[in-house]
Protein backbone atom coordinates (compact mmCIF):
# COMPACT_ATOMS: atom_id res chain seq x y z
CA UNK A 1 0.00 0.00 0.00
CA UNK A 2 1.37 3.33 -1.03
CA UNK A 3 -1.27 5.48 0.61
CA UNK A 4 -0.56 6.45 4.19
CA UNK A 5 -3.22 5.29 6.63
CA UNK A 6 -6.07 7.65 7.44
CA UNK A 7 -5.35 7.41 11.11
CA UNK A 8 -2.04 6.56 12.63
CA UNK A 9 -1.87 6.32 16.39
CA UNK A 10 1.53 6.03 17.90
CA UNK A 11 2.44 5.16 21.48
CA UNK A 12 -0.60 6.88 22.89
CA UNK A 13 -0.89 7.34 26.64
CA UNK A 14 -3.76 8.98 28.44
CA UNK A 15 -3.72 9.35 32.18
CA UNK A 16 -6.53 10.57 34.37
CA UNK A 17 -5.83 11.95 37.76
CA UNK A 18 -7.88 10.26 40.44
CA UNK A 19 -9.38 13.05 42.43
CA UNK A 20 -10.95 12.45 45.73
CA UNK A 21 -12.45 14.42 48.48
CA UNK A 22 -14.16 17.74 48.51
CA UNK A 23 -11.27 19.58 47.07
CA UNK A 24 -10.41 16.96 44.59
CA UNK A 25 -6.89 16.28 45.64
CA UNK A 26 -5.10 14.04 43.19
CA UNK A 27 -4.43 10.73 44.87
CA UNK A 28 -3.18 8.77 41.93
CA UNK A 29 -3.53 8.17 38.25
CA UNK A 30 -5.42 5.82 36.03
CA UNK A 31 -3.65 5.01 32.84
CA UNK A 32 -6.76 4.68 30.75
CA UNK A 33 -4.72 4.34 27.59
CA UNK A 34 -1.29 2.97 28.18
CA UNK A 35 0.78 2.89 25.07
CA UNK A 36 -1.53 2.16 22.19
CA UNK A 37 -0.42 2.17 18.58
CA UNK A 38 -2.70 1.34 15.70
CA UNK A 39 -3.58 2.38 12.20
CA UNK A 40 -6.80 2.67 10.34
CA UNK A 41 -7.22 2.95 6.60
CA UNK A 42 -9.81 4.74 4.58
CA UNK A 43 -13.09 2.87 4.53
CA UNK A 44 -11.91 0.37 7.06
CA UNK A 45 -13.78 -0.56 10.23
CA UNK A 46 -11.79 -1.37 13.28
CA UNK A 47 -13.69 -2.92 16.12
CA UNK A 48 -12.46 -2.18 19.61
CA UNK A 49 -13.63 -4.56 22.31
CA UNK A 50 -12.85 -5.02 25.94
CA UNK A 51 -14.21 -4.98 29.41
CA UNK A 52 -16.00 -1.98 30.78
CA UNK A 53 -13.54 0.64 31.95
CA UNK A 54 -10.61 -0.68 29.95
CA UNK A 55 -10.15 2.62 28.13
CA UNK A 56 -12.04 2.11 24.90
CA UNK A 57 -13.92 5.39 25.10
CA UNK A 58 -10.82 7.24 26.12
CA UNK A 59 -8.91 5.94 23.17
CA UNK A 60 -11.80 6.81 20.90
CA UNK A 61 -12.00 10.33 22.21
CA UNK A 62 -8.30 10.85 22.03
CA UNK A 63 -7.88 9.87 18.42
CA UNK A 64 -10.27 12.62 17.44
CA UNK A 65 -8.61 15.14 19.73
CA UNK A 66 -11.37 15.48 22.26
CA UNK A 67 -8.88 14.52 24.89
CA UNK A 68 -5.23 15.39 25.18
CA UNK A 69 -2.87 12.47 25.50
CA UNK A 70 -0.12 12.57 28.07
CA UNK A 71 2.24 11.03 25.53
CA UNK A 72 2.21 9.78 21.99
CA UNK A 73 0.74 11.26 18.88
CA UNK A 74 -2.13 10.87 16.51
CA UNK A 75 -1.74 11.50 12.81
CA UNK A 76 -4.99 12.01 11.04
CA UNK A 77 -5.10 12.71 7.33
CA UNK A 78 -1.37 13.12 7.53
CA UNK A 79 -1.42 15.78 10.20
CA UNK A 80 -0.36 15.57 13.79
CA UNK A 81 -3.61 16.47 15.52
CA UNK A 82 -2.00 17.71 18.69
CA UNK A 83 0.36 20.03 16.91
CA UNK A 84 -2.38 21.94 15.14
CA UNK A 85 -3.57 25.42 15.90
CA UNK A 86 -7.13 25.63 17.08
CA UNK A 87 -8.29 26.95 13.73
CA UNK A 88 -6.60 24.08 11.93
CA UNK A 89 -7.97 21.61 14.41
CA UNK A 90 -11.44 22.95 13.80
CA UNK A 91 -10.97 22.19 10.11
CA UNK A 92 -9.83 18.66 10.85
CA UNK A 93 -12.75 18.09 13.18
CA UNK A 94 -15.03 18.15 10.22
CA UNK A 95 -13.47 14.95 9.01
CA UNK A 96 -13.54 13.07 12.28
CA UNK A 97 -16.89 12.65 13.91
CA UNK A 98 -18.34 10.86 16.89
CA UNK A 99 -21.41 8.83 17.80
CA UNK A 100 -22.18 8.03 21.38
CA UNK A 101 -23.55 5.14 23.28
CA UNK A 102 -26.51 6.86 24.82
CA UNK A 103 -28.38 8.70 22.10
CA UNK A 104 -30.54 10.49 24.61
CA UNK A 105 -27.60 12.04 26.39
CA UNK A 106 -25.84 13.33 23.33
CA UNK A 107 -28.55 15.71 22.21
CA UNK A 108 -29.01 19.09 23.73
CA UNK A 109 -32.45 18.71 25.28
CA UNK A 110 -33.20 22.35 24.53
CA UNK A 111 -32.69 22.22 20.81
CA UNK A 112 -34.78 20.60 18.14
CA UNK A 113 -32.86 17.68 16.73
CA UNK A 114 -32.82 19.44 13.37
CA UNK A 115 -31.00 22.37 14.87
CA UNK A 116 -28.54 20.02 16.55
CA UNK A 117 -27.76 18.43 13.22
CA UNK A 118 -27.53 21.79 11.51
CA UNK A 119 -25.15 23.05 14.18
CA UNK A 120 -22.25 21.23 12.52
CA UNK A 121 -22.84 23.03 9.25
CA UNK A 122 -23.15 26.34 11.04
CA UNK A 123 -20.00 25.88 13.02
CA UNK A 124 -17.96 24.60 10.12
CA UNK A 125 -19.55 27.17 7.83
CA UNK A 126 -20.25 24.60 5.22
CA UNK A 127 -22.74 25.33 2.47
CA UNK A 128 -24.64 28.51 2.00
CA UNK A 129 -26.85 29.27 5.02
CA UNK A 130 -29.93 29.00 2.84
CA UNK A 131 -28.97 25.52 1.70
CA UNK A 132 -28.26 24.12 5.11
CA UNK A 133 -31.85 23.42 6.04
CA UNK A 134 -32.31 21.46 2.82
CA UNK A 135 -29.15 19.52 3.58
CA UNK A 136 -30.46 18.62 7.02
CA UNK A 137 -33.71 17.44 5.55
CA UNK A 138 -31.76 15.37 3.08
CA UNK A 139 -29.63 13.69 5.68
CA UNK A 140 -32.73 12.90 7.71
CA UNK A 141 -34.09 11.00 4.73
CA UNK A 142 -30.78 9.29 4.29
CA UNK A 143 -30.90 7.82 7.80
CA UNK A 144 -34.46 6.69 7.36
CA UNK A 145 -36.36 9.48 9.03
CA UNK A 146 -38.79 12.00 7.71
CA UNK A 147 -37.64 15.57 7.26
CA UNK A 148 -40.44 16.61 9.62
CA UNK A 149 -38.62 14.88 12.44
CA UNK A 150 -36.21 17.81 12.43
CA UNK A 151 -38.63 19.89 14.40
CA UNK A 152 -38.86 17.53 17.31
CA UNK A 153 -37.07 17.69 20.60
CA UNK A 154 -34.98 14.75 21.75
CA UNK A 155 -37.49 13.67 24.38
CA UNK A 156 -40.12 13.30 21.70
CA UNK A 157 -38.15 10.64 19.87
CA UNK A 158 -37.31 7.03 20.58
CA UNK A 159 -33.80 5.87 21.28
CA UNK A 160 -33.47 4.25 17.89
CA UNK A 161 -34.63 7.38 16.12
CA UNK A 162 -32.24 9.48 18.12
CA UNK A 163 -29.36 7.22 17.27
CA UNK A 164 -30.18 7.65 13.61
CA UNK A 165 -30.08 11.38 14.10
CA UNK A 166 -26.78 11.00 15.89
CA UNK A 167 -25.46 9.31 12.82
CA UNK A 168 -27.00 12.02 10.66
CA UNK A 169 -25.28 14.68 12.70
CA UNK A 170 -21.92 13.04 12.10
CA UNK A 171 -22.61 12.26 8.48
CA UNK A 172 -23.71 15.70 7.39
CA UNK A 173 -20.14 16.95 7.60
CA UNK A 174 -19.02 14.23 5.19
CA UNK A 175 -16.34 12.95 7.51
CA UNK A 176 -13.80 10.32 6.65
CA UNK A 177 -13.73 8.81 10.14
CA UNK A 178 -16.46 8.22 12.67
CA UNK A 179 -15.68 7.02 16.13
CA UNK A 180 -18.69 5.01 17.23
CA UNK A 181 -18.57 4.69 20.99
CA UNK A 182 -20.86 1.79 21.73
CA UNK A 183 -23.50 3.17 19.38
CA UNK A 184 -25.89 0.28 19.91
CA UNK A 185 -25.29 -0.86 23.48
CA UNK A 186 -28.19 1.13 24.83
CA UNK A 187 -30.60 -0.14 22.23
CA UNK A 188 -32.55 -3.31 22.26
CA UNK A 189 -31.87 -6.01 19.68
CA UNK A 190 -34.45 -5.06 17.10
CA UNK A 191 -33.44 -1.41 17.05
CA UNK A 192 -29.80 -2.39 17.28
CA UNK A 193 -30.22 -4.35 14.09
CA UNK A 194 -31.70 -1.34 12.35
CA UNK A 195 -28.80 0.86 13.35
CA UNK A 196 -26.14 -1.69 12.49
CA UNK A 197 -27.63 -2.18 9.07
CA UNK A 198 -27.79 1.53 8.53
CA UNK A 199 -24.18 1.96 9.57
CA UNK A 200 -22.88 -0.75 7.31
CA UNK A 201 -24.81 0.70 4.37
CA UNK A 202 -23.50 4.19 4.99
CA UNK A 203 -19.99 2.96 5.50
CA UNK A 204 -19.98 1.55 2.01
CA UNK A 205 -21.66 4.55 0.47
CA UNK A 206 -19.45 7.23 1.99
CA UNK A 207 -16.18 5.33 2.16
CA UNK A 208 -16.22 5.84 5.88
CA UNK A 209 -13.64 4.56 8.27
CA UNK A 210 -15.18 3.53 11.58
CA UNK A 211 -13.57 3.03 14.90
CA UNK A 212 -16.28 0.91 16.38
CA UNK A 213 -16.12 0.62 20.14
CA UNK A 214 -18.23 -2.00 21.82
CA UNK A 215 -18.10 -4.72 24.35
CA UNK A 216 -20.57 -6.76 22.47
CA UNK A 217 -18.46 -9.22 20.53
CA UNK A 218 -21.25 -10.36 18.30
CA UNK A 219 -21.92 -6.84 17.16
CA UNK A 220 -18.27 -6.23 16.46
CA UNK A 221 -17.98 -9.42 14.55
CA UNK A 222 -20.88 -8.29 12.42
CA UNK A 223 -19.55 -4.87 11.52
CA UNK A 224 -15.78 -4.81 11.82
CA UNK A 225 -13.06 -5.60 9.29
CA UNK A 226 -10.44 -5.85 11.97
CA UNK A 227 -10.78 -6.12 15.72
CA UNK A 228 -8.60 -4.91 18.54
CA UNK A 229 -9.03 -6.30 22.04
CA UNK A 230 -8.18 -3.93 24.83
CA UNK A 231 -7.37 -4.80 28.39
CA UNK A 232 -6.82 -2.00 30.88
CA UNK A 233 -5.23 0.52 28.61
CA UNK A 234 -3.42 -1.85 26.28
CA UNK A 235 -4.24 -3.59 23.10
CA UNK A 236 -3.64 -7.23 23.84
CA UNK A 237 -4.72 -8.64 20.56
CA UNK A 238 -5.47 -7.28 17.14
CA UNK A 239 -6.43 -9.22 14.04
CA UNK A 240 -8.72 -9.38 11.06
CA UNK A 241 -12.19 -10.15 12.33
CA UNK A 242 -12.47 -13.66 11.11
CA UNK A 243 -9.03 -14.58 12.39
CA UNK A 244 -9.71 -13.17 15.79
CA UNK A 245 -13.01 -14.92 16.27
CA UNK A 246 -11.94 -18.22 14.82
CA UNK A 247 -8.50 -18.42 16.36
CA UNK A 248 -8.15 -16.07 19.31
CA UNK A 249 -4.60 -16.11 20.68
CA UNK A 250 -4.72 -14.08 23.84
CA UNK A 251 -6.19 -15.85 26.85
CA UNK A 252 -8.27 -12.78 27.62
CA UNK A 253 -9.80 -12.79 24.18
CA UNK A 254 -10.65 -16.39 24.61
CA UNK A 255 -12.20 -15.80 27.99
CA UNK A 256 -14.31 -13.05 26.52
CA UNK A 257 -15.49 -15.19 23.70
CA UNK A 258 -16.31 -18.01 26.03
CA UNK A 259 -18.37 -15.81 28.28
CA UNK A 260 -20.71 -14.62 25.55
CA UNK A 261 -23.97 -16.47 26.13
CA UNK A 262 -25.11 -18.23 23.04
CA UNK A 263 -28.63 -18.86 22.02
CA UNK A 264 -27.71 -22.44 21.55
CA UNK A 265 -29.66 -24.30 24.16
CA UNK A 266 -27.55 -27.34 23.78
CA UNK A 267 -24.62 -25.41 25.20
CA UNK A 268 -26.47 -23.81 28.07
CA UNK A 269 -24.76 -25.89 30.67
CA UNK A 270 -21.27 -25.46 29.28
CA UNK A 271 -18.96 -24.31 32.01
CA UNK A 272 -17.96 -20.70 31.77
CA UNK A 273 -14.36 -19.85 32.60
CA UNK A 274 -14.06 -17.84 35.74
CA UNK A 275 -11.91 -14.80 35.33
CA UNK A 276 -11.91 -13.52 38.84
CA UNK A 277 -12.56 -9.96 39.82
CA UNK A 278 -11.26 -7.13 37.70
CA UNK A 279 -8.23 -5.32 39.09
CA UNK A 280 -8.18 -1.79 40.42
CA UNK A 281 -7.38 0.28 37.32
CA UNK A 282 -5.19 2.59 39.35
CA UNK A 283 -3.22 -0.31 40.70
CA UNK A 284 -2.62 -2.85 38.00
CA UNK A 285 -0.42 -5.90 38.54
CA UNK A 286 3.18 -5.61 37.52
CA UNK A 287 4.34 -7.42 34.45
CA UNK A 288 1.49 -8.63 32.34
CA UNK A 289 -1.58 -6.80 33.56
CA UNK A 290 -3.78 -9.80 32.92
CA UNK A 291 -1.69 -12.28 34.80
CA UNK A 292 -3.69 -12.42 38.05
CA UNK A 293 -6.75 -13.52 36.10
CA UNK A 294 -4.92 -15.56 33.56
CA UNK A 295 -5.15 -19.35 33.61
CA UNK A 296 -1.90 -19.55 31.67
CA UNK A 297 0.17 -17.19 33.78
CA UNK A 298 3.72 -18.29 34.51
CA UNK A 299 6.77 -16.73 36.08
CA UNK A 300 7.74 -14.54 33.20
CA UNK A 301 4.37 -12.86 33.17
CA UNK A 302 5.13 -11.22 36.50
CA UNK A 303 8.52 -10.03 35.36
CA UNK A 304 7.84 -8.06 32.23
CA UNK A 305 4.99 -6.80 30.22
CA UNK A 306 4.61 -8.55 26.87
CA UNK A 307 4.43 -6.23 23.90
CA UNK A 308 2.17 -6.52 20.92
CA UNK A 309 3.82 -8.72 18.36
CA UNK A 310 2.21 -8.80 14.97
CA UNK A 311 2.59 -11.86 12.81
CA UNK A 312 2.75 -11.73 9.04
CA UNK A 313 -0.90 -12.49 8.72
CA UNK A 314 -1.66 -9.25 10.55
CA UNK A 315 -2.58 -11.07 13.74
CA UNK A 316 -1.00 -9.31 16.70
CA UNK A 317 -0.98 -10.49 20.28
CA UNK A 318 0.69 -9.38 23.48
CA UNK A 319 1.14 -12.51 25.54
CA UNK A 320 4.18 -14.42 26.73
CA UNK A 321 2.31 -17.66 26.56
CA UNK A 322 1.18 -17.03 23.02
CA UNK A 323 4.75 -16.26 22.03
CA UNK A 324 6.37 -19.20 23.69
CA UNK A 325 3.87 -21.80 22.60
CA UNK A 326 2.45 -22.54 19.27
CA UNK A 327 -1.01 -21.44 19.92
CA UNK A 328 -3.74 -23.11 18.10
CA UNK A 329 -7.22 -22.02 18.75
CA UNK A 330 -8.06 -24.80 21.06
CA UNK A 331 -10.57 -24.41 23.83
CA UNK A 332 -9.11 -22.47 26.70
CA UNK A 333 -9.65 -25.09 29.34
CA UNK A 334 -7.31 -27.33 27.42
CA UNK A 335 -4.65 -24.72 26.97
CA UNK A 336 -3.61 -24.58 30.58
CA UNK A 337 -0.67 -26.82 29.95
CA UNK A 338 1.73 -23.94 29.63
CA UNK A 339 1.56 -23.04 33.31
Amino acid at each position, binding site marked *: MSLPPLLDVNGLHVRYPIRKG*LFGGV*VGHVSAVDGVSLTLNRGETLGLVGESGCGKSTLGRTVIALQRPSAGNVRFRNQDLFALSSAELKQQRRFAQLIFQNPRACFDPRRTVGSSVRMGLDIQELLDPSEREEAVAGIFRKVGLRPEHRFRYPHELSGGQLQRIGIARALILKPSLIVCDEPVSALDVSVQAQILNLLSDLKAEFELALLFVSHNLAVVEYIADRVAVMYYGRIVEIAPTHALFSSPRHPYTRALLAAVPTMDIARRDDPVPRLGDPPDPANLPTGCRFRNRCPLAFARCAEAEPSLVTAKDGHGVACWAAESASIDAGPMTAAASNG
Partner: protein
Amino acid sequence: MAQYVVRRLLLLVPVVIGILLITFLMKALIPTDAVTAMYQGQLSEKEAAQAIATLRAKYHLDLPWYQQFFIYVGDLMQGDFGESIRLRKPVIDEIGYRYVNTILLTALSLVIALVLGLTTGILAAARRNTWLDVTATTVGLFGISMPAFFFGLLLILVFSVWLRILPVVPHGWMAIILPAFALGIIEAAPLSQVARSNMIDVMRRDYILAARARGQSETALIFRHALPNALIVVLTVVGLQIGNLLGGAFIVETIFSWHGIGELAVNAIQWRDFALTQAIILISAATYLIINLVADIMYAWLDPRVELVS
Protein backbone atom coordinates in the same frame (compact mmCIF):
# COMPACT_ATOMS: atom_id res chain seq x y z
CA MET B 1 -7.92 13.87 58.37
CA ALA B 2 -5.76 16.14 60.50
CA GLN B 3 -3.79 16.96 57.41
CA TYR B 4 -6.96 17.71 55.59
CA VAL B 5 -8.07 20.12 58.26
CA VAL B 6 -4.71 21.85 58.17
CA ARG B 7 -4.92 22.13 54.42
CA ARG B 8 -8.38 23.56 54.62
CA LEU B 9 -7.28 26.00 57.26
CA LEU B 10 -4.42 27.06 55.03
CA LEU B 11 -6.88 27.64 52.23
CA LEU B 12 -8.63 30.06 54.51
CA VAL B 13 -5.61 32.30 54.64
CA PRO B 14 -6.05 33.83 51.18
CA VAL B 15 -9.72 34.29 51.89
CA VAL B 16 -9.07 36.05 55.15
CA ILE B 17 -6.39 38.22 53.59
CA GLY B 18 -8.76 39.01 50.77
CA ILE B 19 -11.41 40.02 53.24
CA LEU B 20 -8.96 42.20 55.11
CA LEU B 21 -7.80 43.88 51.94
CA ILE B 22 -11.29 44.54 50.80
CA THR B 23 -12.27 46.04 54.08
CA PHE B 24 -9.28 48.35 54.03
CA LEU B 25 -10.10 49.37 50.51
CA MET B 26 -13.61 50.05 51.66
CA LYS B 27 -12.31 52.02 54.56
CA ALA B 28 -10.43 54.20 52.15
CA LEU B 29 -13.61 54.70 50.21
CA ILE B 30 -15.94 55.44 53.10
CA PRO B 31 -16.24 59.20 53.33
CA THR B 32 -15.87 59.59 57.13
CA ASP B 33 -14.00 58.07 59.96
CA ALA B 34 -14.99 57.36 63.51
CA VAL B 35 -13.34 60.42 64.92
CA THR B 36 -15.12 62.82 62.68
CA ALA B 37 -18.34 60.92 63.14
CA MET B 38 -17.97 61.05 66.90
CA TYR B 39 -17.65 64.77 66.94
CA GLN B 40 -20.73 64.99 64.84
CA GLY B 41 -23.06 67.63 66.07
CA GLN B 42 -20.67 68.63 68.79
CA LEU B 43 -20.28 72.30 68.32
CA SER B 44 -17.16 72.23 66.35
CA GLU B 45 -14.51 74.87 66.38
CA LYS B 46 -10.85 74.94 65.70
CA GLU B 47 -10.09 73.12 68.92
CA ALA B 48 -12.47 70.37 68.06
CA ALA B 49 -10.62 70.10 64.81
CA GLN B 50 -7.43 69.78 66.77
CA ALA B 51 -8.92 67.07 68.94
CA ILE B 52 -9.95 65.29 65.82
CA ALA B 53 -6.46 65.57 64.43
CA THR B 54 -5.02 64.21 67.67
CA LEU B 55 -7.23 61.20 67.62
CA ARG B 56 -6.80 60.61 63.94
CA ALA B 57 -3.08 60.53 64.43
CA LYS B 58 -3.46 58.19 67.37
CA TYR B 59 -5.43 55.69 65.33
CA HIS B 60 -3.31 56.13 62.21
CA LEU B 61 -6.30 57.44 60.35
CA ASP B 62 -4.07 60.00 58.70
CA LEU B 63 -2.01 57.38 56.90
CA PRO B 64 -2.79 55.97 53.46
CA TRP B 65 -4.97 52.90 53.60
CA TYR B 66 -2.29 50.42 52.65
CA GLN B 67 -0.04 51.59 55.46
CA GLN B 68 -2.96 51.25 57.82
CA PHE B 69 -3.42 47.77 56.43
CA PHE B 70 0.11 46.72 57.26
CA ILE B 71 -0.05 48.22 60.69
CA TYR B 72 -3.30 46.40 61.28
CA VAL B 73 -2.02 43.07 60.06
CA GLY B 74 1.06 43.53 62.21
CA ASP B 75 -1.09 44.15 65.24
CA LEU B 76 -3.32 41.28 64.34
CA MET B 77 -0.38 38.92 64.27
CA GLN B 78 0.14 39.81 67.89
CA GLY B 79 -3.48 39.11 68.68
CA ASP B 80 -4.35 42.77 68.85
CA PHE B 81 -7.59 43.65 67.15
CA GLY B 82 -7.12 47.32 67.88
CA GLU B 83 -9.15 49.68 69.89
CA SER B 84 -12.62 50.91 69.25
CA ILE B 85 -12.47 54.64 68.82
CA ARG B 86 -16.06 55.09 69.75
CA LEU B 87 -16.02 52.88 72.78
CA ARG B 88 -12.48 53.73 73.75
CA LYS B 89 -11.66 50.23 74.67
CA PRO B 90 -10.05 47.22 73.05
CA VAL B 91 -12.32 45.86 70.39
CA ILE B 92 -12.01 42.39 71.85
CA ASP B 93 -13.61 43.51 75.09
CA GLU B 94 -16.75 44.53 73.30
CA ILE B 95 -16.85 41.79 70.74
CA GLY B 96 -16.10 39.05 73.25
CA TYR B 97 -19.37 38.95 75.09
CA ARG B 98 -21.38 39.87 72.03
CA TYR B 99 -19.83 37.04 70.13
CA VAL B 100 -20.83 34.64 72.86
CA ASN B 101 -24.34 36.03 72.72
CA THR B 102 -24.51 35.65 69.00
CA ILE B 103 -23.20 32.12 69.09
CA LEU B 104 -25.72 31.20 71.75
CA LEU B 105 -28.53 32.73 69.78
CA THR B 106 -27.37 31.20 66.53
CA ALA B 107 -26.97 27.77 68.05
CA LEU B 108 -30.34 27.74 69.73
CA SER B 109 -32.17 29.15 66.75
CA LEU B 110 -30.45 26.63 64.56
CA VAL B 111 -31.65 23.83 66.78
CA ILE B 112 -35.14 25.22 66.59
CA ALA B 113 -34.87 25.70 62.85
CA LEU B 114 -33.60 22.17 62.39
CA VAL B 115 -36.26 20.59 64.54
CA LEU B 116 -39.06 22.58 62.96
CA GLY B 117 -37.68 22.55 59.45
CA LEU B 118 -36.87 18.87 59.38
CA THR B 119 -40.08 17.65 60.94
CA THR B 120 -42.27 19.76 58.72
CA GLY B 121 -40.14 19.05 55.67
CA ILE B 122 -40.17 15.31 56.23
CA LEU B 123 -43.83 15.22 57.08
CA ALA B 124 -44.66 17.26 54.03
CA ALA B 125 -42.60 14.96 51.86
CA ALA B 126 -44.06 11.83 53.38
CA ARG B 127 -47.59 13.08 52.96
CA ARG B 128 -46.91 14.73 49.66
CA ASN B 129 -49.82 16.64 48.12
CA THR B 130 -52.06 16.20 51.14
CA TRP B 131 -53.41 19.04 53.24
CA LEU B 132 -50.51 18.48 55.59
CA ASP B 133 -48.02 19.14 52.83
CA VAL B 134 -49.91 22.20 51.62
CA THR B 135 -50.14 23.58 55.14
CA ALA B 136 -46.50 23.00 55.92
CA THR B 137 -45.42 24.52 52.63
CA THR B 138 -47.68 27.52 53.04
CA VAL B 139 -46.59 28.15 56.59
CA GLY B 140 -43.01 27.77 55.48
CA LEU B 141 -43.46 30.29 52.71
CA PHE B 142 -45.10 32.53 55.25
CA GLY B 143 -41.90 32.38 57.26
CA ILE B 144 -39.81 33.22 54.24
CA SER B 145 -41.99 36.11 53.20
CA MET B 146 -42.22 37.82 56.56
CA PRO B 147 -39.94 40.71 57.46
CA ALA B 148 -38.05 39.74 60.60
CA PHE B 149 -38.84 42.78 62.70
CA PHE B 150 -42.52 42.50 61.97
CA PHE B 151 -42.49 38.92 63.09
CA GLY B 152 -40.43 39.79 66.15
CA LEU B 153 -42.83 42.45 67.30
CA LEU B 154 -45.75 40.10 66.80
CA LEU B 155 -44.06 37.48 68.96
CA ILE B 156 -43.54 40.03 71.73
CA LEU B 157 -47.11 41.18 71.45
CA VAL B 158 -48.41 37.65 71.77
CA PHE B 159 -46.08 36.05 74.27
CA SER B 160 -45.12 38.96 76.44
CA VAL B 161 -47.95 41.45 76.34
CA TRP B 162 -50.96 39.21 75.89
CA LEU B 163 -49.89 35.92 77.38
CA ARG B 164 -47.29 37.34 79.72
CA ILE B 165 -45.30 34.14 79.73
CA LEU B 166 -42.03 35.60 78.59
CA PRO B 167 -40.31 38.80 79.58
CA VAL B 168 -40.02 41.73 77.24
CA VAL B 169 -36.94 43.11 78.89
CA PRO B 170 -34.21 40.55 78.61
CA HIS B 171 -33.03 39.07 81.83
CA GLY B 172 -31.62 35.68 82.54
CA TRP B 173 -31.86 32.73 80.22
CA MET B 174 -35.47 33.48 79.36
CA ALA B 175 -34.26 36.37 77.27
CA ILE B 176 -33.01 34.10 74.55
CA ILE B 177 -36.27 32.27 73.99
CA LEU B 178 -38.14 34.78 71.88
CA PRO B 179 -35.27 35.88 69.65
CA ALA B 180 -34.24 32.28 69.16
CA PHE B 181 -37.73 31.35 68.12
CA ALA B 182 -38.09 34.37 65.89
CA LEU B 183 -34.88 33.50 64.08
CA GLY B 184 -35.47 29.78 64.25
CA ILE B 185 -38.89 29.99 62.67
CA ILE B 186 -37.65 32.28 59.93
CA GLU B 187 -34.72 30.01 59.20
CA ALA B 188 -36.83 26.89 59.48
CA ALA B 189 -38.76 27.82 56.38
CA PRO B 190 -35.99 27.37 53.82
CA LEU B 191 -34.74 24.30 55.68
CA SER B 192 -38.16 22.79 55.54
CA GLN B 193 -38.33 23.40 51.82
CA VAL B 194 -34.93 21.92 51.23
CA ALA B 195 -35.72 18.94 53.42
CA ARG B 196 -39.00 18.41 51.66
CA SER B 197 -37.68 18.59 48.15
CA ASN B 198 -34.71 16.41 48.98
CA MET B 199 -36.83 13.86 50.73
CA ILE B 200 -39.08 13.75 47.71
CA ASP B 201 -36.06 13.45 45.51
CA VAL B 202 -34.49 10.72 47.59
CA MET B 203 -37.75 8.84 47.94
CA ARG B 204 -37.80 8.54 44.16
CA ARG B 205 -34.40 6.90 44.06
CA ASP B 206 -33.92 3.32 43.05
CA TYR B 207 -32.48 2.27 46.37
CA ILE B 208 -35.63 3.33 48.14
CA LEU B 209 -37.65 1.32 45.68
CA ALA B 210 -35.29 -1.57 46.27
CA ALA B 211 -35.63 -1.27 50.03
CA ARG B 212 -39.39 -1.11 49.73
CA ALA B 213 -39.22 -4.23 47.63
CA ARG B 214 -37.43 -5.90 50.51
CA GLY B 215 -40.42 -5.28 52.73
CA GLN B 216 -39.22 -2.26 54.63
CA SER B 217 -42.05 -0.34 56.22
CA GLU B 218 -42.69 3.22 55.10
CA THR B 219 -41.49 4.60 58.41
CA ALA B 220 -38.27 2.65 58.18
CA LEU B 221 -37.86 3.81 54.60
CA ILE B 222 -38.19 7.44 55.59
CA PHE B 223 -36.07 7.41 58.69
CA ARG B 224 -33.57 4.67 58.16
CA HIS B 225 -33.03 4.84 54.42
CA ALA B 226 -34.05 8.22 53.04
CA LEU B 227 -33.33 10.64 55.85
CA PRO B 228 -29.56 10.13 56.07
CA ASN B 229 -29.37 10.89 52.37
CA ALA B 230 -31.61 13.92 52.53
CA LEU B 231 -29.69 15.27 55.49
CA ILE B 232 -26.59 15.60 53.40
CA VAL B 233 -28.02 18.41 51.34
CA VAL B 234 -29.74 19.95 54.32
CA LEU B 235 -26.36 20.17 55.95
CA THR B 236 -24.93 22.28 53.15
CA VAL B 237 -27.84 24.65 53.43
CA VAL B 238 -27.36 24.87 57.16
CA GLY B 239 -23.73 25.80 56.65
CA LEU B 240 -24.73 28.62 54.38
CA GLN B 241 -27.50 29.74 56.67
CA ILE B 242 -25.17 30.13 59.57
CA GLY B 243 -23.48 32.84 57.59
CA ASN B 244 -26.76 34.67 57.38
CA LEU B 245 -27.44 34.10 61.03
CA LEU B 246 -24.11 35.46 62.15
CA GLY B 247 -24.35 38.80 60.48
CA GLY B 248 -27.92 38.94 59.39
CA ALA B 249 -29.56 38.56 62.73
CA PHE B 250 -29.14 42.20 63.53
CA ILE B 251 -32.82 43.01 63.20
CA VAL B 252 -33.84 40.30 65.60
CA GLU B 253 -31.01 41.23 67.93
CA THR B 254 -32.08 44.85 67.89
CA ILE B 255 -35.76 44.13 68.43
CA PHE B 256 -35.19 41.73 71.26
CA SER B 257 -32.36 43.71 72.77
CA TRP B 258 -30.18 40.66 72.47
CA HIS B 259 -26.82 42.21 72.21
CA GLY B 260 -24.91 40.27 69.65
CA ILE B 261 -22.42 41.21 67.02
CA GLY B 262 -25.11 41.75 64.40
CA GLU B 263 -26.44 44.72 66.28
CA LEU B 264 -22.95 45.90 67.00
CA ALA B 265 -22.06 45.61 63.36
CA VAL B 266 -24.76 48.00 62.30
CA ASN B 267 -23.75 50.44 64.97
CA ALA B 268 -20.09 50.09 64.19
CA ILE B 269 -20.68 51.02 60.59
CA GLN B 270 -22.83 53.94 61.52
CA TRP B 271 -20.21 55.12 63.95
CA ARG B 272 -17.61 54.53 61.26
CA ASP B 273 -15.74 52.73 63.97
CA PHE B 274 -13.41 50.92 61.73
CA ALA B 275 -11.46 48.74 64.13
CA LEU B 276 -14.75 47.45 65.43
CA THR B 277 -16.23 46.85 61.99
CA GLN B 278 -13.07 45.18 60.88
CA ALA B 279 -12.98 42.85 63.83
CA ILE B 280 -16.62 41.95 63.42
CA ILE B 281 -16.10 41.14 59.79
CA LEU B 282 -13.05 39.09 60.58
CA ILE B 283 -14.58 37.18 63.38
CA SER B 284 -17.82 36.46 61.55
CA ALA B 285 -15.94 35.47 58.45
CA ALA B 286 -13.66 33.20 60.43
CA THR B 287 -16.61 31.65 62.22
CA TYR B 288 -18.40 31.17 58.96
CA LEU B 289 -15.39 29.57 57.35
CA ILE B 290 -14.71 27.31 60.27
CA ILE B 291 -18.32 26.27 60.57
CA ASN B 292 -18.32 25.44 56.92
CA LEU B 293 -15.19 23.44 57.38
CA VAL B 294 -16.93 21.54 60.13
CA ALA B 295 -19.94 21.19 57.88
CA ASP B 296 -17.72 19.76 55.17
CA ILE B 297 -16.19 17.31 57.55
CA MET B 298 -19.63 16.31 58.71
CA TYR B 299 -20.61 16.09 55.09
CA ALA B 300 -17.84 13.63 54.47
CA TRP B 301 -18.91 11.78 57.55
CA LEU B 302 -22.53 11.60 56.46
CA ASP B 303 -21.72 10.87 52.87
CA PRO B 304 -19.21 8.08 52.48
CA ARG B 305 -18.80 8.88 48.80
CA VAL B 306 -16.93 11.98 49.81
CA GLU B 307 -13.53 11.32 51.21
CA LEU B 308 -11.34 13.72 53.07
CA VAL B 309 -7.93 13.53 51.57
CA SER B 310 -5.07 15.78 52.16
